[in-house]
């Protein structure tokens, strides 16, 4: 798909500055529009990314607590605030609304400026929204540990917390809309579609599920319509938008089959929404509703394959680059995980399969494959690209980045494999009525232990990442002489002037 000439009329037009925000100084060096856009988004991006990293560490602490407590249930058993039933929703909230949502907003703000080739507007409003969101998170987490849960999965935090978060989201949308109106591009790249749509969908989702008008089985269908969509219409679009930007950027090639990406977007928008009730297979929800959800879940294969073709064919043209580029390595890991988790999700909800896996640890493995192996790893890769450009510094240590990658990559691999196997064992035993329940618990214990081990690995990765982020923001470490790669790439791979021949022995 490489065009014969790199200069297209559209691209050249986009580079010319329009009168207004950019000063005449930019006329002397047109290339620095990227630097100016990055500089304008610096403070809101850093605010959201740093907040996200703090919640990542907090959420990781809750994760370890929860996992260890299933291994040793009497550990810290006298403390009400740390009981499994409170720590588990605190972990979910800290990771979904704290870490992933906030770091994704930081990534989104940065991408928005780059994709629209304009400075982000109303950075003050964005900073205020970040503060408000953090206030909401603190209220929420403390509330959960104190026992003030709403009892509705995925929105357990007290309503007061969402009263902060939903308006914060609205403020972000306001800023993004203002920037959209001042865009300097003719064409809205596919990432803009995903980001714009998710900003529309998410407040609707949150408000709809928090309305106090439900009870009984309808409450369950709304609950799972929401929970499934917060994954597919909030976190997935940002992950996909990032992958659609960073893979072509680092690989240096346009997306393989770009016209397919429109099909991918619209089939996601139209099909994903309907799949949520597959969480209630075998339950008291009306059966035709469950069947509709199963059907749309299977139809999700279409957008998943589209995205897979685009991401993997683009990346695989220059796949060697994952050896060098931290961004590409994390993002490709995430993109491949997206394909895996979505194909698994499309083929999972059949009643015969669900008879075994429903209510087991298999579901937890699947959700972590999505939220972590896809969402979190792409967020890591995006941050590795974005932070140097907004801080004006470079990462302190390639070895620590490598440590981060291997601990988190192996950790999530172990987690998913262990919990999948444990879940299938659990489910099959549960369907055999002659097996006493406590025997089932005993059979899952080794797999729960393996999850704790995986969790420790991932914790090491997260602390390493937090340390690296801290170092780069504070401009610590040796003065940068070039981008940080895992190994020195040969000349010409990433621009001119990059080091000499590859010497794999010396540099890790």
């Amino acid at each position, binding site marked *: 798909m490489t065009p014969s000439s790199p*200069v*297209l009329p559209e*691209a050249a037009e986009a580079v010319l500055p329009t009168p207004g925000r950019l000063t005449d100084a930019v006329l002397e*060096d047109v*290339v620095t529009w990227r*630097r100016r856009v990055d*500089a304008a988004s610096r403070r809101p991006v850093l605010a959201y990314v740093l907040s996200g990293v703090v919640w990542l560490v907090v959420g990781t602490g809750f994760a370890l607590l929860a996992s260890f407590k299933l291994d040793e249930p009497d550990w810290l058993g006298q403390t009400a605030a740390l009981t499994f039933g409170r720590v588990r929703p605190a972990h979910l909230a800290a990771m979904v609304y704290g870490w992933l949502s906030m770091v994704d907003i930081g990534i989104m703000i940065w991408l928005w400026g780059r994709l629209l080739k304009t400075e982000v507007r109303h950075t003050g409003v964005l900073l205020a929204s970040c503060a408000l969101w953090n206030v909401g998170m603190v209220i929420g987490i403390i509330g959960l540990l104190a026992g003030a849960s709403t009892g509705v999965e995925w929105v357990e935090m007290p309503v007061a917390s969402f009263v902060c978060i939903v308006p914060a989201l609205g403020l972000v949308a306001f800023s993004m809309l203002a920037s959209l109106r001042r865009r300097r591009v003719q*064409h809205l790249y596919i990432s803009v579609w995903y980001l714009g749509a998710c900003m529309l969908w998410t407040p609707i989702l949150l408000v709809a599920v928090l309305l106090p008008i439900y009870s009984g089985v309808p409450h369950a269908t709304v609950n799972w319509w929401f929970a499934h969509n917060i994954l597919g219409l909030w976190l997935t679009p940002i992950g996909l938008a990032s992958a659609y930007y960073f893979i072509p950027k680092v690989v*240096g090639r346009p*997306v393989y089959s770009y016209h397919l990406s429109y099909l991918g977007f619209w089939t996601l928008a139209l099909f994903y929404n309907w799949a949520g009730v597959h969480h209630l297979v075998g339950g008291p929800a009306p059966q035709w509703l469950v069947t509709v959800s199963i059907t749309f879940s299977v139809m999700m294969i279409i957008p998943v394959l589209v995205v897979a073709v685009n991401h993997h064919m683009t990346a695989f043209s220059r796949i060697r680059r994952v050896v060098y580029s931290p961004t590409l390595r994390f993002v490709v890991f995430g993109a491949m995980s997206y394909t895996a988790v979505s194909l698994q999700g499309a083929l999972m909800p059949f009643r015969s399969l669900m008879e075994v896996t429903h209510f087991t640890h298999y579901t937890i493995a699947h959700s972590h494959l999505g939220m972590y192996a896809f969402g979190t790893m792409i967020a890591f890769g995006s941050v590795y690209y974005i932070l140097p450009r907004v801080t004006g510094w470079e990462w302190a240590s390639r070895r620590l980045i490598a440590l981060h990658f291997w601990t988190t990559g192996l950790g999530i691999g172990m987690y998913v494999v262990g919990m999948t196997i444990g879940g299938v064992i659990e489910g099959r035993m549960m369907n055999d009525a002659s097996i006493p329940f406590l025997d089932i618990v005993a059979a899952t214990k080794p797999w729960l232990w393996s999850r704790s081990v995986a969790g420790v690995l991932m914790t090491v990765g997260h602390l390493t990442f937090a340390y690296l982020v801290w170092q780069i923001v504070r401009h610590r470490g040796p003065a940068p002489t070039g981008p940080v790669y895992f190994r020195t790439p040969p000349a010409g791979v990433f621009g001119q002037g990059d080091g000499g021949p590859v010497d794999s022995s010396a540099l890790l």
Partner: protein
Amino acid sequence: MSYAPLLVIVGILVGGAAATLTVLFRADRAGLFRHLSAGATVLFDEAEPPGVPQDQLFAPDATRPPQAT
């Protein structure tokens, strides 16, 4: 057992499919489906053509960020 909700669902799906197809036909007639792949190269431009990422700091020929405020 009332079939009304099922009919509502089927109605929504059929109506939605009809609306979608109409939109697609109209868009095609408006020429929106030509040059679909042109957008893929928006990420690149004169200064950063495909194949050679230039968007880096601190390489000898990279563009420096403006002084941080």
